[in-house]
């Protein structure tokens, strides 16, 4: 192999010394660099293409078809096939937000307490048995969650509360089960990563385990715990299938938690097959997708912000 230019200084010396400092790994280095660069390029192009495609379609609703932005975001009626087509997406936006917020509200305390139990109270058993079980929960396909929701949650709700059992309540219960592993796993990692010195410092001052947990452990890890909740919410926001199976899918803002409602994702999956590419109805669905995408970005930013606060 040729001596690279960097080795110029050595070249003055004898040939054997120069060889001793040769760079036999240049090709390996380059292969590695090029390969990893290609991988990242594929990722960037894919993401860029998705964002471009969704935006161009989603924005066409407003710029080409003349639907007003306020009418879409604030409109209460979704009747794309009516005599006067109406594209009010507020019921879907409301459904998405209410199900994911309620799901997070239910799953966050459960997940955090489970994480506290696994890391602070029974670390051995928690690590060996509970954590794998929770990770297993994360691997269950969403259709199974939806099916369980349909055959267990909905009938139970129907028996206890007025209405058919379907609706926001059923949707958020199913979602809370789905995001529980996300919240628990992130909370567990955060709690386990807490420096031992902090807890010992608290114990050494005569604090009990509970005092240490709620005065030191939880406040210190709060940003990471919230990161888990936001990631869980973002998963709930994007989940389509399981919610769609139990929420009822009528495009109205419901009057109670037990009345049929709809979400952005379920509206897209249900309607997409029935529309013609390029039609206003189709573009309006892309607008819904654009809303979903923007919300995902918001969630990512919130997570970033929390992580930065955590590092400090």
């Amino acid at each position, binding site marked *: 192999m040729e001596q690279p230019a960097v080795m110029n200084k050595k070249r003055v010396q004898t040939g054997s010394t120069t060889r001793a400092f040769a760079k036999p790994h240049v090709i390996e280095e380059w292969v590695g660099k090029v390969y990893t660069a290609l991988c990242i390029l594929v990722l960037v192009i894919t993401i860029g293409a998705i964002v471009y495609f969704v935006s161009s379609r989603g924005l066409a609703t407003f710029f080409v078809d003349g639907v007003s932005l306020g009418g879409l975001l604030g409109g209460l009626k979704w009747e794309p096939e009516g005599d006067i087509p109406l594209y009010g997406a507020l019921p879907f936006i409301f459904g998405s937000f209410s199900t994911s917020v309620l799901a997070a509200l239910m799953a966050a305390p459960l997940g955090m307490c489970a994480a506290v139990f696994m890391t602070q109270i029974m670390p051995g058993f928690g690590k060996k048995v509970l954590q794998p079980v929770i990770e297993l929960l994360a691997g269950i396909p969403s259709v199974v969650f939806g099916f369980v929701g349909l055959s267990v949650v909905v009938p139970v709700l129907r028996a206890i509360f007025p209405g058919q059992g379907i609706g926001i309540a059923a949707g958020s219960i199913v979602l809370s089960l789905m995001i529980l592993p996300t919240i628990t796993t992130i909370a567990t990692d955060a709690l386990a990563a807490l420096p031992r010195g902090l807890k010992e*410092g608290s114990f050494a001052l*005569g604090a009990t385990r509970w005092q240490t947990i709620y005065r030191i452990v939880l*406040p210190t890890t709060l940003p990471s715990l919230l990161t888990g909740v936001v990631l869980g919410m973002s998963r709930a926001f994007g989940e389509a299938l399981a919610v769609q199976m139990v929420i009822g899918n009528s495009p109205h803002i419901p009057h109670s938690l037990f009345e049929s409602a709809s979400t952005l994702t379920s509206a897209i999956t249900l309607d997409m097959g029935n529309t013609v590419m390029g039609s206003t109805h189709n573009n309006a669905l892309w607008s819904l997708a654009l809303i979903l995408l923007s919300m995902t970005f918001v969630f990512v930013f919130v997570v970033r912000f929390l992580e930065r606060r955590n590092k400090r």
Partner: protein
Amino acid sequence: MQSVASQTLIDIHKLNLYYGQFHALKDVTMDIPEKAITAFIGPSGCGKSTLLRTLNRMNDMIPGTRIEGKVAIGGADIYSKEVDVETLRKKVGMVFQQPNPFPKSIYDNIAYGPRLHGIRGKQKLDEIVETSLRSAALWDEVKDYLKRSALSFSGGQQQRLCIARAIAVNPDILLMDEATSALDPISTLKIEELAQELKDKYTIVMVTHNMHQAARVSNQTVFFLNGEVVEFAETEKLFSNPRDQRTEDYISGRFG
């Protein structure tokens, strides 16, 4: 082992400690006098930190630890069933190897202990914070920054903050587990001076890797080897005229 100075505060008798199968402390017997500095020296893994941590029962948290024998503080067996560990730890403060201030303000760090034990009034807490910081020779440096995060201070300041935090719950005994090993020489010197001042009010037991530190600061020195007490004597005597050959080898740097 003979008691060297005044009144005995900590009485350890035939103490054996096991981590699972490992016999970490073997028949340790000693009387630690009150209001003096007692230093534990010895090579790594000789059991000196382990013994220190039996004095405030921090070893309780390590699974598989078994203890035989007696440790009494002020005549009361601290391993008897009636003992409340939290009350014990309030009486036996501890400073660790790595400064471990809580990620809170200076004020909240000091007030943490008193609040745990039920002190609420702002005036009372203000007073405790000031006296504790003054005792730890930190007041003049931080009095204008009490609301600032403890993590924004230097390692030496953080360690003195940890001492102030330990003092704030009004302990009788202060355990220092290699409290200066993570600090620079000047911060180390400050902590050593501080220990000298504090020994008038508190009984101090310190573990140190640094023989010179033990020689400079302590009144009594205990030399450990493989979980056994080799020699317990007045510091001056132990360093100038050790009775045991192994002590001599260690302090002259022939091993360890």
